[in-house]
């Protein structure tokens, strides 16, 4: 179903996105003639200056926005709208505050569209909470969780409907440095366990190089791709690795 590793999963085909000018403000061309592809199972990081259109790019993939021209293809078909095969993990966690941790994860499973797929709600929820290390917090509300825990809960909620790709929009940007490093490891751990394709937006070059198979470097608006860097270092990667530091330095120079 989810396609073999190495197969094309996502393709941007000369995609342009312009936000129309409202109330006399000028139209903003955010993305211009963007072309790239992502393969099944890949961990791809996207970096670029803030305001360059990274979130917009993920919104196109999630189906929240249609492109102004060009095509966004998922498994060869144009994206028509949001669907559970493409789940967003928002920058500001968008958890349902009236549901407990377990309730948030179960929400997707209980929807009509996802019922009767043979999966037991309770055991799926338990397994996912275990995966993101929130076992003891099933009955807590999101307001009782720390920033890192909320972010992990978002991931678990997205994984509940068994998506093919996770679209992560600066998921770690709001965390303190220590929590952030731990979460980088945890996201990688989740990726290795679930083998989902991950698109990971960040503005931290270190983070991108440490985590991803490939790093897409974007230019200032209107966005096009400056460079796609393939990171062939074995995991687990160490920050002190001179080869890794070299890549980081090169990409930094590119963005300046």
């Amino acid at each position, binding site marked *: 179903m989810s396609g073999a590793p190495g197969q094309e999963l996502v393709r941007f085909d000369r995609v342009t996105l312009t936000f129309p000018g409202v109330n006399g403000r000028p139209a903003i061309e955010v993305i211009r003639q963007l072309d790239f592809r992502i393969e099944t199972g890949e961990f791809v990081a996207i970096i670029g200056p803030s305001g360059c259109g990274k979130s917009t790019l993920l919104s196109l993939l999630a189906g929240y926005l249609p492109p102004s021209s060009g095509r966004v293809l998922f498994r060869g078909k144009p994206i028509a709208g949001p669907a559970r095969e493409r789940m*967003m993990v928002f920058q500001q966690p968008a958890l349902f*505050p009236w549901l407990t941790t377990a309730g948030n994860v179960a929400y*997707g499973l209980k*929807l*009509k*569209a996802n019922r009767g797929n043979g999966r037991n709600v309770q055991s799926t929820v338990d397994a996912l909470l275990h995966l993101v290390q929130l076992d003891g917090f099933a009955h807590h*509300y999101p307001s009782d969780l720390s920033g890192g825990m909320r972010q992990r809960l978002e991931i678990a909620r997205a994984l509940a409907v068994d998506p093919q790709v996770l679209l992560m929009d600066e998921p770690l940007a709001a965390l303190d440095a220590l929590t952030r490093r731990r979460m980088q490891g945890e996201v990688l751990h989740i990726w290795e366990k679930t083998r989902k394709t991950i698109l990971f937006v960040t503005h931290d070059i270190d983070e991108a190089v440490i985590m991803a198979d490939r790093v897409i470097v974007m230019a200032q608006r209107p966005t096009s791709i400056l460079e796609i860097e393939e990171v062939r270092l074995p995991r687990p990667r160490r920050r002190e690795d001179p080869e890794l530091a070299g890549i980081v330095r090169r990409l930094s120079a590119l963005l300046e």
Partner: protein
Amino acid sequence: MRPLVLRWPSFRLIERAALPRWALRLVGPLTVLLGWELGARFGLINTLLLPPPSAAFADLGVLISGGYLGKALYASLFRVVCGFALAVVVGALLGLAMARIRLVDDFFDPIVELLRPISPLALFPLAILWFGIGDGSKIFVIALAACFPVILNTFAGARSIDANLIRAARSLGASEFEIFKGIVLPASLPHIFTGIRLAWGISLIVIIAAEMVGATVGMGYMVLEAQQTFRTERVFAGIFVIGAIGFVTDLGFRRLRRWLLPWYRETQD
């Protein structure tokens, strides 16, 4: 979560007096009553205009044992509960619909804004013509006056929902109806609840005023009749009862909210 309270050393001494919170909260009203009682006893105030609270409480006893208070209270509360319930149901549904459906908003918003500034009592004479001097006219004006805070708060709540919550639900596979029931409604509940509390307060105010203008039974009628026969202690007995009802029911609403919305935090961190 506790709200931030300024802590002065001398305040802390009082807090250490080991009185529970609810007992501390009685100190203020009791002080006022005591001062008032003493003022009346020592002839500092004209007891014809401002009778001592003890006289009001004595008369309250008479009203209760004579069954008069029960009858008046029943009549008033019946009208309040009916009008209030109507206001809550209609107000919440209309507020939600206006917030989420453009066409409904365009249709009802001008009507709401035109009716809202009109004093409900200005419509009361008309209501008596339409619904008679009995319960109908009171229920009508209460429902009308109390539905506005419900509509406006519900609308504000349903409009201020984080768009990403709805996007997340849509990505997870929710249908439009599931989004309404599972996201829009619960996300708006704290605001709806605020509207309901305001509506209850307005209902209590409107019923007394309406019963003073045109009624044959009820708390407002009782107070007005007492005033016309110059029984000021009875006027105050009625006022105490009305105040107590408002006080107790608002406590009840807070309890209810804690029970219905355990996830809700008044101050977000």
